[in-house]
């Protein structure tokens, strides 16, 4: 094992895009390993606080530091949260054990990590993406996090070439669940969709805050390529992916790199590769250690965890409505598809309840959804009654869509949350049909050439005519109604 970048630019792939090489008959095969820090108050095996951002080495105790004689005691809440996320991912929760994974690294003072190996607490689940694509979950097991190393000296804080390292053990022993997907993912967008959906589930069940930028959610990707239907080829594991966007870029790059190797009849070496955000490439980090090299054996200081049917069912019953179902409910009320942008965005913000409350008050969920998507502040600053009233005014044509948008902005800015009062203040009132008709007639008389073209079937001529009416009405006319009126005037 050696930790060094190897110059492997010889097979730096060209900039072909995904669609192009998939047309050449290649398919990527991706499985994701996601580590999430559980939102407990204390560590997995000791009573030090589990808290991000504290002064270094203030949340430490004999177990965290691996001091002789210190013994681990399992945190019940960590088990409960692991079960919660397992059940939310349709896993079977089973009797489980802990093992020691032995390796030497300064961020692991015991020289082993306690992790579930043979018998993980969660097995055999799945996660459905918003578009219906199903990704299998192989396992979701409990383990402890490591300390945090800072590399000093050398180039840019990298391990390679650094002068020394500084270790903070606050994170050591923080409870993690590692969620391992099956190699079902075939496209970078599916990988990104999986992470987004997983993050929403984790937050919804309160298992983790799942922040990639703070490291409470960390993603490694196993990537290989093959011709569809053929056996799996050698894979590489990609580390250091720090955002959902980077994940998409990293696996696409890696797939292209491997295709270039296959097409040149060069071997793909099984290894761990490091994603470099700056040059947009993956680099050789180290050869993958064999699982045997960790010399796993049962942790003799801990006993079996056997939650039993009663505890499992209690956790299952207490699960909240999950994001997919929330989206389905919202989509149904708003008359949209569950994976439409507005539904996805508003549900992700957790503002779907607000929109549903509008509907409960007799307002229009579709109109409310549109405004909440565009103006997230609504849900925090404007009473649901106001949006319900506004949506009714817009739906019945008392105000136009663009007037409604103006009123929304005023409601957010000012303390005035009565849309009817705002509409009156702004002089918004329903255009009298006879007024509108007069304006349409005027527009026809004023632009006879445009009118002739329009009647002859030139759709483009409509713009000038409608524009004239909008100008005459000072923007208050409803564009749709005006267009319809012009249609009726055709000879």
């Amino acid at each position, binding site marked *: 094992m050696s930790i060094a970048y190897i110059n492997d630019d010889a097979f730096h792939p060209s900039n072909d895009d995904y669609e192009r090489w998939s047309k050449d008959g290649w398919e990527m095969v991706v499985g994701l390993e996601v580590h999430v820090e559980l939102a407990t108050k204390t560590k997995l095996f000791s009573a030090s606080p589990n808290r991000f951002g504290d002064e270094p080495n203030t949340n430490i105790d*004999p177990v965290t530091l691996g001091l002789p004689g210190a013994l681990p005691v399992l945190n019940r809440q960590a088990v409960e949260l692991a079960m919660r996320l397992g059940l939310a991912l349709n896993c079977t929760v089973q009797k489980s054990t802990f093992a020691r994974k032995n390796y030497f690294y300064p961020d692991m003072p015991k020289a082993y990590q306690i992790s579930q190996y043979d018998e993980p607490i969660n097995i055999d689940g799945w996660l459905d993406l918003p578009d219906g694509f199903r990704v299998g979950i192989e396992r979701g097991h409990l383990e402890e996090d490591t300390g945090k190393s800072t590399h000093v000296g050398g180039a840019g804080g990298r391990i390679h070439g650094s002068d020394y390292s500084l270790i903070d053990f606050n994170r050591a022993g923080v409870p993690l669940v590692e969620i391992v997907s099956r190699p079902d993912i075939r496209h970078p967008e599916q990988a990104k969709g999986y992470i987004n959906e997983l993050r929403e589930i984790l937050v919804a069940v309160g298992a983790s805050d799942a922040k990639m930028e703070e490291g409470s959610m960390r993603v490694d990707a196993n990537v290989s390529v093959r011709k569809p239907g053929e056996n799996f080829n050698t894979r590489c594991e990609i580390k250091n992916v720090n955002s959902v966007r980077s994940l998409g870029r990293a696996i696409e790059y890696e797939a292209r790199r491997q295709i270039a190797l296959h097409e040149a009849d060069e071997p793909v070496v099984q290894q761990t590769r490091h994603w470099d955000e700056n040059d947009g490439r993956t680099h050789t980090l180290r050869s993958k250690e064999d699982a045997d*090299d960790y010399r796993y054996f049962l942790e003799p200081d801990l006993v079996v965890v056997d939650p039993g049917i009663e505890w499992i069912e209690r956790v299952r019953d207490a699960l909240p409505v999950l994001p997919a179902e929330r989206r389905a409910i919202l989509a149904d009320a708003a008359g949209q598809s569950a994976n439409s942008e507005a539904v996805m965005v508003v549900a992700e913000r957790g503002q779907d309840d607000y929109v549903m409350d509008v509907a409960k008050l007799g307002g229009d969920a579709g109109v409310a959804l549109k405004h909440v998507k565009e103006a997230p502040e609504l849900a925090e600053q404007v009473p649901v009654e106001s949006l319900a009233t506004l949506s009714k005014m817009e739906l019945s044509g008392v105000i136009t869509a663009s007037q409604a948008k103006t009123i929304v902005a005023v409601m957010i800015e000012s303390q005035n949350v009565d849309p009817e009062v705002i509409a009156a203040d702004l002089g918004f009132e329903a255009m009298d049909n006879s007024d509108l008709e007069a304006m349409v007639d005027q527009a026809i008389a004023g632009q006879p050439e445009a009118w002739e073209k329009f009647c002859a079937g030139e759709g483009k001529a409509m713009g000038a005519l409608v524009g004239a009416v909008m100008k005459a009405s000072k923007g208050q006319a409803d564009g749709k109604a005006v267009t319809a009126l012009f249609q009726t005037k055709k000879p």
Partner: protein
Amino acid sequence: MPDESPRITVDEVSKVATLARLILTDEELSTATAELSAMLDHFADIDGLDLDGIEPMMQPTPLANVMRDDVVGVTLNREEVLSQAPLAEDGRFRVPPIVGIEE
């Protein structure tokens, strides 16, 4: 000892020693190899038994579900702990540059 090929070779023992960061002399290596082979002979005897239908024993004790509540307890004093370390800097343990071992 059965007259088959050895259960474990000196090279394998050497590799495991390296993984465990143990420096063994040639003499220690050959002693360890012989002792580990004897242990593996014993496991081979167990492997020879008919164990169908017997559930693997995960732990020697019948205990399960020994857990604690998620309540913050006492932490160690950082300065006291760091004063025991060979080197410390900036509230943290200072360690030599992290490099892998060439194999």
